[in-house]
Each structure stands twice: as C-alpha cells, then as structure tokens.
C-alpha cells in the first residue's frame, strides 16, 4: 500500500512541477486583473458599439467552459501562425477567462463608490483620468480585494486543466510519475495535499481581509 520511501522519492519532482502551477496562477491572475479592468472600462464606454461588443465578448467568454477555450487557443493559434509555448497559451487562457469574472468584480466596486464622489471630483476640476486614478479606483479596489482573492484561489485550483494542453504542471507530473511506476496513490494524494496547503491558508487570509476591510475606520485609527 502506502510507501513512504516512494513518497519522499517523488516529492521533489512534484514540488518542481508545482513551480509551473504557481507561475501559471500568478501570471494568469495578473493578466486577468489587468484585462478585467480593461473590460470594465470598455463596457462603460459612451460609444455604444464599443460597450455592446465588449459586453458580448465578455459574456461569451464567461458562459463557455475554460477547457474549450484552452483547446481552442492551443490548437487554432498555430494556424494563424502564432506559435507559443503551451504554458504561455495556458496563462493567456486562464487570464482571459478569469478577466471576465474580475470585470464584474470591478464593476461592483466602482458602482459602490458614491455618486457624490464623482461630483466632488468634478467640482475640483479633475480630468477624467485623475478622477479615476485619484478618487474612484482608490475607493473601489480595497473593498473588492477579498472577492479578488477568492477568484485567485479558484484560478489556482483550475490550473490542472492546463494538463489537457500538455503543460507539465502538478497534475500532469503526477500522471507521468504514476504511469512510470504504476503507483498512483502516493502521487495523487501528494498533489491534493500540495493544493490544500496553499489554498486553505489563502482562504483564511481572504476571510481576514474581508473582516478587516469591512471597517475602514479601524484600519485608519
């Protein structure tokens, strides 16, 4: 049954594959954060065709499975002569998919800022850019950090999908090791544990932030 010697033998290999998982998570989330904000602005655009096509694209990406999007990117990009490493394609796929969720989060944050703040900015003659960067976003972002954190954890847990496009992340590595030795129990258990070790404390951190950010007065005292 369970072999400890085998466990310690394969652990370093799994941990080095975990690096790929982390790279995909962090870069994917970074891309999602930036792109999400871009969607939010495009959806708010005053020119109708821009806002409506942004809404359509976002809805389409959000309402279709990530796995299909990954396959689509991985197998069709080369036919447009775009040849990218599998990991890069994976990061783009994750970033694109999660950007649509984050765009909703940003929207909620922005709409929660009182309309009087826009008026105050206008009365002080801020440019639209200054209004966004000095007044609106600094108030819109802190309350949504916990929500963004939750999406970060969800994205992290979805990285095994990248195995489907041949990225050797944790799951793919486990599969390779397992089929090499015909021993699956230890490797898949370890994969589960590694995911848990990172996602559980992160979720506690998110909960802590939620409580802390709910009461800005205390934070500032």
């Amino acid at each position, binding site marked *: 049954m369970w072999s400890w010697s085998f466990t310690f033998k394969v652990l370093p290999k799994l941990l080095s594959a975990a690096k790929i998982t982390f790279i995909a998570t962090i870069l994917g989330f970074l891309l999602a954060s930036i792109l999400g904000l871009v969607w939010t602005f495009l959806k708010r655009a005053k020119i109708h065709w821009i806002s409506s096509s942004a809404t359509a694209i976002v809805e389409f990406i959000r309402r279709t499975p990530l796995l299909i999007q990954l396959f689509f990117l991985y197998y069709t990009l080369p036919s447009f002569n775009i040849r990218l490493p599998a990991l890069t394609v994976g990061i783009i796929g994750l970033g694109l998919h999660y950007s649509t969720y984050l765009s909703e989060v940003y929207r909620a944050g922005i709409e929660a800022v009182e309309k009087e703040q826009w008026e105050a900015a206008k009365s002080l003659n*801020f440019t639209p850019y200054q209004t966004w960067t000095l007044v609106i976003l600094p108030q819109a972002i*802190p309350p949504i950090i916990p929500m963004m954190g939750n999406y970060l954890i969800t994205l992290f847990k979805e990285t095994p999908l990248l195995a489907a496009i041949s990225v050797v992340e944790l799951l793919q590595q486990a599969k390779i090791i397992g089929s090499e030795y015909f021993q699956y129990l230890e490797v898949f258990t370890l994969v589960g544990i590694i995911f848990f070790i990172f996602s559980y404390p992160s979720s506690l951190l998110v909960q802590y932030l939620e409580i802390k950010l709910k009461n800005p007065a205390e934070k*500032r005292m």
Partner: protein
Amino acid sequence: MESADLIIKTARKSKIQKKDIKPEMIVHEGTLTTFDNPLVKYINVKKNFGELQVLKGIDLEVGYGEKLTIIGSSGSGKTTLIRMLMTLEKPSSGIMEIEGESLWTMKKNGKTVPADEAHLRKMRSKVGMVFQQYNLFPHMTVLDNCTIAPIKVKGMDPEEAKEQAIQMLKRVKMSDKINYYPNQLSGGQKQRVAIARAVLMRPKILLLDEVTSALDPEMVGEVLNVLNEIAQEEKEMTMIFVTHELDFAREISDRIIFINEGYILEQGKPESILNDPKSERLQAFLSRFKENRNL
C-alpha cells in the same frame, strides 16, 4: 415604440409649458439686478427632469464679488440652479454665461457647437462648490483632501500647496486635525474641511449648496461662523448660497432671490426682502419659517 413615446411625452411637456405663465418678477427698490460686466448670466434657462419641469425660465445676473443667497421651498429648483453652474446638470434650454463666455456651447470654425470636455474644464476652473453631504475623499487625510486638487489640477508646488492648506485650515479652525481621516471627524468638522478645500482652489464663484442642512443642530453654528468670516474676508470671491438659514442670509448677503415653482419671483436686499416681502408666496414662505422657530 420608443419614438412614438417620445412624441407623446414632448407633446405633453409643451402643453404644460404653455399653461405656465411667467410671473412678473418683483424687484425691491435699490437692488442691483443687472451689471455692465456680469460674472454669471442665466438667460431664460429651463431644466426638465423627465416630465417634471424644475426650472421654467430663469433670468439672472450675478456681479463680481457679490454674495447672493437663493431661498425657496424644497423642490423649487434652487439647488438645480447652482448645480448647472458647476456643470453637474445640463440645462434643457437657455443660455448660461460665465464672464461673457457661453458655458454649454463653444465656437468652432465660426460655428456654435456643444461644449466639449476641454471647454467645460476651462469654464469649471472658475467655479467651486461646497456640498450638503461634504463629499470629502474618505481615503485621504484632511490635508490631502485640501492639497490634492491644487497640486494635481493647478500644478502647484506640493510644499506651497501644503503651506496654503495649513493656513486655510487655520481659518476654518481645523488645523489641529490635518492628519485625520474624514470618518474620524464630526459633520461640522467635515464641512469646514470641505469649505477649506473649495476655497483653496480660488474659484471666482463659490457655490454653497445647503451646507448646513445635513448637520446636527449644535454644529450649524460653527460652520456658519466660519462661512461668515470667509465671506467677509474674501471680498473678491463671488459666493452663491442656497440655504434655509435666513438669519445667516440676512447677515452676509448683498442680495437675496426667492425662487418659487421654477421662476425667480422676488429679489431684493436682505433687509427689504425679508422684512417686507411683496408676494403672497414669499410672505407664506417666511411666516412658515417664523412659526418653525417659535416651536
């Protein structure tokens, strides 16, 4: 569907407008209502919110350095009148001018076109506003609230902006709280900071929209005292107050205008208009205030 709706709505609106007859404006003796060189000018300005016509034809001139108070019952359109000058609302029709230049239109290649953002920003730089709900930036300290716009909008040197802000905060008696955040201040304190923030931009016209209406009664005095001092000291700055504080209005105003049902019904110097109101509407309005005070 939509266009049919619009036609019906427009038809209804014009019916309402036809029924309304512009009342004769009562001007008390010795009141200056026109100027050779007015700072602000409204010409037949109207404002609808959907079907509701809030302002039905406002003609008004405001002079340089004038302290003007607008009174009237709630819903009479007095706040809308000044919000349009801050470009927070757009008039439905009519002309508004600041220093002889149209606020909502501009000349482009000899043609008159709707104002673009650049034109509005240029015009807005002449106007400042203090709001009923203070509208301080909650994520900035008192000092930052006061320095951010001078630094970022006017390009002032940060040290200079800080020095001016501290001086100004002394005048509103808030200099001991410069590192506090708005949520650590009382309503009266917030409003005094908001006044400092607006004055520091040195607008030609400062609009004050019911600045004591949201305050607890014990804090009204401290804000009015500060405003009184600023009104005395800032002789150059034109100030337009919308307020229900009639004693305060009497003390600081050069002129008071009474708005009723979307029109300016009566205007005059404070003593004259408050002691000797001519129109029935103003008499009723003022007696309601006296009753409330006696309660």
